[in-house]
C-alpha cells in the first residue's frame, strides 16, 4: 500500500468529495492560489475553479454565516478556518446558529457543513495559535467533533464529515500536519464512521484514552512501561469526541479496572473531564483506582521551547500517572 502524510490525507479527502458531489465547495482564507497554509489543498483551486474554491476576505463570521446560508439551501460547504483559536470571532455562528437551527426549526432543515481548523501546541506559536478547544466546543449540543490522530483516520473521517448532514468540526493537530508520520492508505475509497473508537494498542493493566497527538505520545509511553516495568497499557483513541464511543472505553475499564485520560487540553472544562465523569458513573463498580487525567495546566499556552514543553502533556507525565495507580 502507498503511504501518505496527514496533509496529503486532507487534500485527498477534499479532492475526492469534491469530485463526487458538485454541491461540495470550499471557502476560507488562502484556500485559492495558495492552496492552504501548508499547501495541503494545492491544486484544488486549479482543478475546481474559483467558484468551488473560494478565497474570502478576513471575515470569519461571514465565512461561517455564508456557509450556514449555503448549507440550508442545498449546498455542502467546507469552511476552512485555519487555527481553531480564531473561531472565537465567529463563535455565535457555531454556538447559536449552525448547531441550533435544526432543533429550533422543529427538525425541518439540514445543515451539512464541515469546518476544519488547526489545533494544538508544540510549534511555539504562543497563546493565540496553539489552543486545544475541544472541551469548549463539546459543550455545544448539535456539533460533531472529529480529532484524528493519524493520516489514515484523517482521510476516512474527513470524508465522513463532508457527507454528514450536520455541522462537523474537523480538528487537525499541528504536530501531525507539519511532521506527523505517514500512514499506509489504500488507493480505494474508504470511510470511517463517527462514534467508533480505535483500540490503538491492546493491553491489560491500565486503559489510556488519548486523542490526536497524544496518541503518539501514549504509544511511546506504553512501550517504555511495557519494557521497563512490565505494565501493559490499552490505548483507546476515540477519534470523534462527539459522538463519543463510550462503550469501547467502558469495556476496557471493565477489563483493566484503571484509567488515565491523556489529552492536550487545559484540564478544567476538558473532554478528559467528561470521560472521567462517565467512567466514574457507569464503570464505578469495576474501578480499582482513582480516575486519572493527564492534561495541560489551566493556563494559556506559553511561547518558546522551555515553557511550552513544560506545559504540554508528555510521556513522563503519563507514566507518572500510570505508576500512581498500579
Amino acid at each position, binding site marked *: 500500500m502507498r503511504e501518505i502524510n496527514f496533509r496529503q490525507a486532507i487534500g485527498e479527502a477534499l479532492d475526492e468529495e469534491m469530485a463526487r458531489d458538485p454541491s461540495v465547495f470550499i471557502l476560507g482564507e488562502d484556500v485559492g492560489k495558495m492552496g492552504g497554509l501548508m499547501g495541503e489543498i494545492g491544486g484544488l483551486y486549479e482543478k475546481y475553479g474559483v467558484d468551488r474554491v473560494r478565497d474570502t476576505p478576513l*471575515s470569519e463570521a461571514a465565512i461561517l454565516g455564508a456557509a450556514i446560508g449555503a448549507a440550508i439551501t442545498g449546498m455542502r460547504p467546507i469552511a476552512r478556518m485555519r487555527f481553531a483559536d480564531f473561531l472565537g470571532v465567529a463563535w455565535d455562528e457555531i454556538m*447559536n446558529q449552525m448547531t441550533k437551527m435544526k432543533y429550533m426549526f422543529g427538525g*425541518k432543515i439540514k445543515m451539512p457543513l464541515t469546518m476544519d481548523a488547526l489545533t494544538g501546541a508544540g510549534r511555539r506559536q504562543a497563546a493565540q495559535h496553539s489552543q486545544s478547544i475541544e472541551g469548549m466546543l463539546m459543550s455545544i449540543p448539535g456539533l460533531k467533533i472529529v480529532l484524528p490522530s493519524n493520516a489514515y483516520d484523517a482521510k476516512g473521517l474527513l470524508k465522513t464529515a463532508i457527507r454528514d448532514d450536520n455541522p462537523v468540526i474537523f480538528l487537525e493537530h499541528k504536530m501531525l500536519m507539519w511532521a506527523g508520520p505517514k500512514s499506509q492508505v489504500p488507493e480505494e475509497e474508504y470511510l470511517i464512521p463517527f462514534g467508533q473508537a480505535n483500540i490503538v494498542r491492546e493491553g491489560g493493566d491500565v486503559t489510556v484514552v488519548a486523542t490526536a497527538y497524544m496518541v503518539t505520545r501514549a504509544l511511546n509511553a506504553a512501550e517504555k512501561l511495557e519494557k521497563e516495568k512490565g505494565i501493559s497499557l490499552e490505548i483507546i483513541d476515540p477519534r470523534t469526541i462527539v459522538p463519543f464511543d463510550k462503550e469501547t472505553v467502558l469495556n476496557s475499564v471493565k477489563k483493566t479496572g484503571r484509567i488515565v485520560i491523556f489529552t492536550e487540553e487545559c484540564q478544567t472544562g476538558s473532554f478528559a473531564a467528561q470521560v472521567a465523569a462517565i467512567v466514574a458513573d457507569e464503570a464505578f463498580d469495576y474501578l480499582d483506582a482513582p480516575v486519572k487525567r493527564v492534561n495541560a495546566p489551566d493556563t494559556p499556552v506559553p511561547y518558546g521551547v522551555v515553557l511550552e514543553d513544560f506545559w504540554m502533556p508528555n510521556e513522563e507525565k503519563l507514566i507518572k500517572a500510570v505508576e500512581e495507580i498500579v
Partner: protein
Amino acid sequence: MAIEKEKLKELYRTMVRIRRFEERVAREFAEGNIPGSVHLYIGEEAVATGAIAHLRKDDYIMSTHRGHGHLIAKGGDPRLMMAELFAKKTGYCLGKGGSMHIASLDIGMLGAAGIVGSGIPIATGAGLSAKLRGTDQVTICFFGDGAANIGRFHEGINLASVWCLPVVFVCENNLWAVSVPTSCSLSVPNVADRAAGYGIPGVVVDGMDVMAVYEAAGEAVARARRGEGPTLIEAKTYRFRGHFEGDAGTYRPKEEVEEWLKRDPVNNFKEKLIKMKVLTEKEAEEIDQAAREEMDEAVKFALESPFPEPEEALKNVYS
C-alpha cells in the same frame, strides 16, 4: 412607477393581515396564552409588505426577532404561526422555536434571528447558494437599526458585495434598539450611508409608505435578479408598541411617539387607496373583516392543538 390596482389591494390586504395578526398576538400574550417574549411589528407593516411583494415563492427571506410580519408577507400561514407562539405541536417548528425562531424553507423563510444581526451573513450565504446552483433566486435580509452596528453587518454585506450576490439588505430603522436611540449608535444621518463603504447602492426610503418601499425594493430585487449584486435599503419606520410586549417604552419621548402614530402605514394607505379610488370603504371593511376572521381562526387552531409530547425535547438535534 405605476403600481397595478390589484397589486395595491394585495399590498393593503397583506398589511392589514399583519396588523390583525399582531394585535391578536398582543391580546393572547396578555391573556397568558403565549409564553416567553414577543416583539410586535405594528407600525412597520409597510416594510415587509412592500419589499417581499417582489419575491417569488422560491426566493428567500431572512427575518429578525420582530419577524411575524415578514413571514406573513412571504406567505406564512397564521394558523401555524399562532400555534408556534402557543408552543403547540402543530406550530411551524413543532412548538420548539417560538416567536423568535420560525423558519419554513418550503416558502423560502430561512429563519428569524434571536441573536441580533445573525441573519445578515446567513442571507449572504443563501445568495451564494443561489449563485452556485445557477438559479436566479433573490434573498431579502431584514434587520434593524440596532443590528446595523454589529460586526456581521460589515462582514456579511461586504462579502455579498465582493462576491456580487443576489441579496437585498433591508434595514428597518425604527430609530430605537430597545432604549438606545440611533443618535447613540450612528454618527451619520442614515444607515444607508454605509453602503458606500461596500460599493453598493444605499437607498433611503419612507418605511411608512408601502408604495415607496415597493418601488425601492423593486429596483433592488431586479438588480439582484439580474446578477448585478446587492443593495442596502434603509426604511425609516417606527414601532408603535414597546420593544417587547410588556415593555412600557417610557424611554421614548411622548411627542415622538405621537408624531409617528399619525403616520400609521395601514390606515394612511387605506385612505390613500380610497382617495385613489382603488379601494372602496366597503372593500376595505371586507378585507379587514376577513383578516380578523383569519386570525380568529388561527387562535382557535392554536388553542385546540395539542402540546408536543415532552420527549420531543430530545429530538432533532442531529439529522
